[in-house]
């Protein structure tokens, strides 16, 4: 699966975002090292602590299905510029992204950007 196809799945997941409070819709799609796909959207909550981002929704689904290794994760947000994962999601992604795994971002023009973890999250806190 190429980056464009994975991003298209993230865009489909974005349509299912639950965002009655901020209307900021985000979608994510994970390709595992076993070629499985897991998609997620953000789910807001009036207690903002209970809100979960699209990236972590997808990670939770992946883990629940018994998968542990992310090869690529595509993320799309409702922004003009490339929408990068928040620090909380970078922390979560760093736990499961394979070495040389990629994070793929897009912008309102539909351009794609492929980044390694340390370009977004240098010196990650990890036990690896």
């Amino acid at each position: 699966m190429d980056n464009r196809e994975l991003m298209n799945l993230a865009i489909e997941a974005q349509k299912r975002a639950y965002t009655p409070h901020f209307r900021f819709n985000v979608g994510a799609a994970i390709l595992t090292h076993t070629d499985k796909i897991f998609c997620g959207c953000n789910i807001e909550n009036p207690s903002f602590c209970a809100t979960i981002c699209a990236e972590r929704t997808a990670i939770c689904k992946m883990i629940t299905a018994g998968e542990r290794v992310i090869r690529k994760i595509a993320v799309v947000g409702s922004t003009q510029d490339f929408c990068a994962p928040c620090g909380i999601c970078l922390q979560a992604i760093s736990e499961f992204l394979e070495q040389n795994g990629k994070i793929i971002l897009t912008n309102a023009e539909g351009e794609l950007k492929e980044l390694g973890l340390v370009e977004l999250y240098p010196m990650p806190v990890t036990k690896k």
Partner: protein
Amino acid sequence: MNCSNQIDNLQLMELARGAMEAAYAPYTNKRVGAAVLTASGKTFTGSMVENISLSGATMCAERAAVFNAVSEGELEIAKLAIICETEQFMPPCGVCRQVFSVFLPDGEVLLGNCCGEEIRVYTTKELLPLL
């Protein structure tokens, strides 16, 4: 809270070390402390507070220090010192970096360890380049 215009990195790290000793870490036994210097010259400290849920209920020292400052009306933080009870210079987790991007986007993050006076200095932007 203390107020000083002259505090240097070593002094800020010493405040963090004091907070480290107050940390509540019965599960990992790795205490962490932090201290912030606000733009107005005030200092606030924070200690790690673990929780048996080991999830959202655990609070890192860094965020405890930042929220300590913010709750006193200090929204601009110039420097934040972190010290961990290990030989390692422990970088902040992603959750804390996310908070830094709001309250010290142009600030400095100082890392210390339990073994000496060496302090490693990073900017928030170095720790979270795209945010």
